[in-house]
Every structure is written in structure tokens, then in C-alpha cells.
């Protein structure tokens, strides 16, 4: 029997009982849909973690002045962190790999007749290592630049585009708050993230930022990279005790600073995703099993109903394997059609989760291939018994069947 004829015969069987077949398919659709949604969620979470790592750096803690956020309002004074605090932390908290204070704010930057409002970040060279920035052109400023309070700037890719277009940037002079800065470096683009554009930023030495631009003693932020993820709790405790002592905060009183732990945020995010993934794989497993049983059930009914047809086919020359193949392919046609619809449903669920939930989802070729294979596998596993039963019928008995 030719292949297309086998397929045509299989689909004829399916179409003859539309309602029954579509109900049977539903289990497979839900199962494969859950697999696709689950995998896209898992893949999305993985990408998100990787993206976060490249954006925030690995094992990074961020200390900001003021107590914890209440809603979106930061409480307490914002002038509590100093360069002294930063140096004290570096000197007395073990486990810190890199540390860099940040003094900065959003302000206007001018180049000849163009201007742009951007984030001016006064910091140290360690900042770019902690936060995974790369220099594209020129050289980032160094310790002597900081010590000598030089007016030099490293500009982000977005700023470069806004101020210089396609023209040269390194060596040009820009004005920040009336001060003239020489551009010594252009940073490589990191790409727009969901929250902000890290390339819309100008880096200047932290001392210059404090004394010539913003005129402030305090720092806005201290970024700390910890040696190893396992040190994070100890380092947090160390920071807490050193800063509380320096700020003379009595026991029981709330700290006037906040430590944000991105690793922790990421882990929490991963855990939610994990829970959801486990839930979805449970749904997938159960509904594929139940769906498979449904397919087996409907195929058994179909085989019994079509006993006479089997007898006729055998009388005109069908071998046992022809009958086996016919019913197996019919089961596969049900599950694979269900699988293809399920892939569509799963992709839609993933899209909805992305849009209305806080999850990022990515549909990969492999998840589609896996969903497809699973639907085929269910068809084989649950279709083989009814197909075998059909193929083992006695042609004489089958022809006599009413």
C-alpha cells in the first residue's frame, strides 16, 4: 500500500468521527501545550538569568542610602553613605572582590550645538568590571585620573550616537554642568534592557563628580562584587555591622541604608519559575497519560466497529502488517494532529504568560521538536495494542461480524 493512501485512509477514519476524535485529541493538545509552555518558560528563565548576570554582574550587592523602599518611595535621608564608608567596607569586610562607589545623577550634556540628557555616573574603574561593561574605543579612566580629579569622560554608545552621530568622539570635548570634559573612551553597547538603557550613560571619575559636577560629599550607591556566591550572606552581615557601627545606629533601630542583592532577586525569580515549571510538567505528564488512554480507548472502539472492514481488507489481500500499520497510523494521525495543535496552544500560552505575567518565555526549535516527538510517542505506545488486536483478527470471523 502506498504511503499517501495509508495517510488518506487514516484521515478518512478520523474525519468520519469528528466529534469523537476531537475530544480524544484534547488530552494530547493539553499535554503537548503544557510541554511547550513549560519548556518556553524554562528557557525564558534561563535567558533572563543570563541577561541579568550580564547586566548586573554576578554576585553583585548594591548599597543605597535610605531605609527600605515603601512602595516606590524611599524613606529616610539620602545623604548617609560616604566615600569613607566605602573605604571602611573594603578594608574590614572579608570576601569583597571589587567595590566601587557611585556619585551620579541625570543631567544635561552638551557637544557644540547638540545636547542630551543622560545619566552621569561618577565612579571608579572597578565599576565597569563589576557591571560587565566593555570599552569599545580609547581607554577608561584610571586611578591617577581619580586622584587628580581630572575632567575626563567615558561615554556610552547611546550618548555617543546622540551627541556625535557617526563622527569621531574620542578626543572631543563635552560640557557637563558647565565643566569641560575630554572624551577618552566610548563604551561598547550592552543593549536596551527592559528597565533602562545602560548605554545612555557617561562615566567620569568619582572625585570629579563629587567636587566639580554635583558638589556632594555623600555617594549615591556602592556597588560590591563578592568573591563567591556562598559568601554573600556573610558579606551582607559584615556590611550591615560595619555601616551600622560607623553610622552609630542603636540596636533595634532600622538601618539608614539598604543592601540590594541581585543574586537573591534572581533566585527568587528562578524559584517561582521552577514551581510553575513543575506544575506544568505535572499537567503535561498527566494529560498525556490520560490523553493516551483516551486514544487507546477510541482506537479499541474503532477496531471493534470496523471488524467487518478488517475482514474485507484481509479477504482482498491485506496482510496482518498492513492492518497493523493502518490502525497504528490512524492513532498517530490523531496524536500528531493533536500535537501540532498543542504546539500552537502552548506557544499562545507562553505568549500570554510573557504579556500578562512577569515571566519571560522563549520558544525554541527543540521544544517544538520535543512536543512533536512526544505526541508521536503517545500515538505509538497507546496505538500499538488496538492496532495489534485488529491485525490478529481471524478474517473469517471478521467477515461474519455484524
Amino acid at each position: 500500500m502506498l504511503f499517501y493512501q495509508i495517510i488518506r485512509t487514516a484521515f478518512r477514519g478520523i474525519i468520519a468521527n469528528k466529534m469523537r476524535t476531537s475530544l480524544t485529541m484534547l488530552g494530547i493538545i493539553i499535554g503537548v501545550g503544557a510541554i511547550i509552555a513549560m519548556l518556553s518558560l524554562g528557557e525564558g528563565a534561563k535567558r533572563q538569568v543570563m541577561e541579568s548576570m550580564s547586566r548586573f554582574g554576578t554576585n553583585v550587592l548594591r548599597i543605597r542610602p535610605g531605609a527600605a523602599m515603601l512602595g516606590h518611595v524611599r524613606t529616610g535621608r539620602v545623604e548617609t553613605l560616604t566615600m569613607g564608608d566605602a573605604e571602611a567596607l573594603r578594608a574590614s569586610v572579608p570576601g569583597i572582590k571589587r567595590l566601587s562607589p557611585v556619585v551620579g545623577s541625570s543631567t544635561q550634556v552638551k557637544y557644540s550645538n547638540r545636547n542630551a540628557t543622560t545619566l552621569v555616573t561618577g565612579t571608579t574603574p572597578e565599576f565597569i568590571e563589576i557591571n560587565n561593561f566593555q570599552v569599545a574605543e580609547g581607554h577608561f579612566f584610571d586611578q591617577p585620573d581619580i586622584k587628580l580629579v581630572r575632567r575626563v569622560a567615558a561615554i556610552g554608545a547611546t550618548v555617543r550616537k546622540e551627541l556625535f552621530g557617526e563622527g569621531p568622539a574620542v578626543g572631543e570635548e563635552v560640557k557637563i554642568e558647565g565643566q569641560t570634559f575630554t572624551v577618552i573612551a566610548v563604551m561598547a553597547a550592552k543593549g536596551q534592557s527592559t528597565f533602562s538603557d545602560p548605554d545612555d550613560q557617561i562615566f567620569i571619575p568619582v572625585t570629579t563628580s563629587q567636587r566639580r559636577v554635583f558638589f556632594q560629599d555623600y555617594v549615591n550607591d556602592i556597588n560590591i562584587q563578592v568573591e563567591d556566591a556562598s559568601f554573600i550572606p556573610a558579606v551582607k552581615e559584615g556590611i550591615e555591622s560595619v555601616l551600622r557601627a560607623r553610622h552609630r545606629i542603636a540596636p533595634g533601630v532600622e538601618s539608614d541604608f539598604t543592601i540590594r542583592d541581585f543574586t537573591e532577586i534572581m533566585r527568587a525569580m528562578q524559584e517561582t519559575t521552577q514551581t510553575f515549571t513543575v506544575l506544568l510538567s505535572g499537567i503535561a505528564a498527566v494529560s498525556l497519560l490520560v490523553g493516551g488512554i483516551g486514544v487507546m480507548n477510541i482506537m479499541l472502539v474503532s477496531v471493534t466497529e470496523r471488524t467487518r472492514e478488517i475482514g474485507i481488507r484481509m479477504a482482498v489481500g491485506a496482510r496482518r502488517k498492513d492492518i497493523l500499520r493502518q490502525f497504528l497510523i490512524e492513532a498517530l494521525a490523531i496524536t500528531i494532529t493533536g500535537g501540532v495543535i498543542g504546539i500552537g496552544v502552548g506557544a499562545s500560552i507562553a505568549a500570554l504568560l510573557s504579556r500578562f505575567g512577569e515571566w519571560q518565555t522563549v520558544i525554541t526549535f527543540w521544544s517544538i521538536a520535543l512536543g512533536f516527538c512526544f505526541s508521536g510517542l503517545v500515538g505509538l505506545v497507546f496505538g500499538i495494542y488496538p492496532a495489534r488486536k485488529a491485525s490478529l483478527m481471524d478474517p473469517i470471523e471478521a467477515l461474519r461480524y455484524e
Partner: protein
Amino acid sequence: MIELRGITKRYSIGGSLVEVLSSIDLEIKKGESVSIMGPSGSGKSTLMNIIGCLDKPTEGAYTLGGIRVDSMDEDALARARNLNIGFVFQSFNLLARHTAVENVELPLFYAGVNDSESLAKAALKEVGLEHRMNHKPNELSGGERQRVAIARAIVLNPPIILADEPTGNLDSRTGKEIMALFDGLHSKGTTLVLVTHDPNVAAFAQRAINIKDGKVVI
């Protein structure tokens, strides 16, 4: 063409062994037309199933076109049914969801023939149904259905047509038309085996074989 030697068939029914056919010797020559007659329970259906390669004898030798059939495996039997024998049943046995052409194409599928549609149409034309080719069995009359079944039986040009009460479900006029078709096939050289208990049908054959209690009676 068909040669049966000492064909015996026993069934075990409820623990006791029943001998349905006992040591039948029978020869049907190429191009012959033969009727097998006998009351129900005589074993003529079993004999027909064995001749039609649907069943295997318990004992004895069956040679079909010079080839021993009783020792064949099931795939070879299926092939023998496909290529050597055209079945025509009392109850037509057409696939209800398939059109006339598709029903006639069925043996061609299992024979692996590529151009099945034109062959099936030619066979339907031969039985005078070229105007009803795309109808389904429930849209056809009894006589037309049996014509479709005959077209299906002859589509692969088998040397033998095996008909089991072919007119049993038809009125006498339609029955005569069907028998005329068989006559035509026989005159073209096809070996015809008619299983029936109707003497009028048996009269179409050159030779009548009577079966009683599993034995050939003269």
C-alpha cells in the same frame, strides 16, 4: 487449477473436536465453472474458505495453480488471496465510507499498484457501472453494489472468482443480471466457483459438487 487431496478440517468447539470436512478430494480445472452445493452446516462454507485461502486445512494438501497452499505462511496466503482469487459475497462486503471506485481500488493498494484509479474505473466499466463510480454503497441498489463487488473481484484479473451466494440478497431479475456477468467472465476464461444452495444458480455452472456432512457426495 485447484486441487484438494484429503482435505480435513476439525474445530474444537467447547472441548469436543468437530470434523467439519473429512478427507475431501476435489479437482477444478482452469476455465471450469463449478458450483458447490449443500445444505447449511454441510461444510461448504469451510470448504470455500479453504479454497479462498482464508483458512487452512487441518490435514491434506491444497494446490492452487501448481503451488502448495496448505503450508504457506499468513503473508503468502494474503498475497494468494490478493492476486489469485476474487471474492464475491452474498452481503456484498463493501466499505461503507468509500466510493465505488475506492472500493474497487482496495485490492490494488495491497498489490502495490500505482495507477489504481484508472484500473478501478476500467473494472467498473466492465460491469456496467461507469455512471455510478463516485457513489457510496448506500447510494447504490443491491444489484449495483454486487456489480461493484464483482468489479473489485476482477480488478487484478485473478484466475479464480469465488462467489458465495452471490444472488442471495437480490431479487430474481437482478440475480439473473449478476449471473449473466459471471457467465461473461467465465467465457473469457476465468475459473468460476459458485457456492450456493440455490439450484437455479448452480445450473449456471458446468459441474455441480454436492457436499453433505463434510463429504463430497455424487
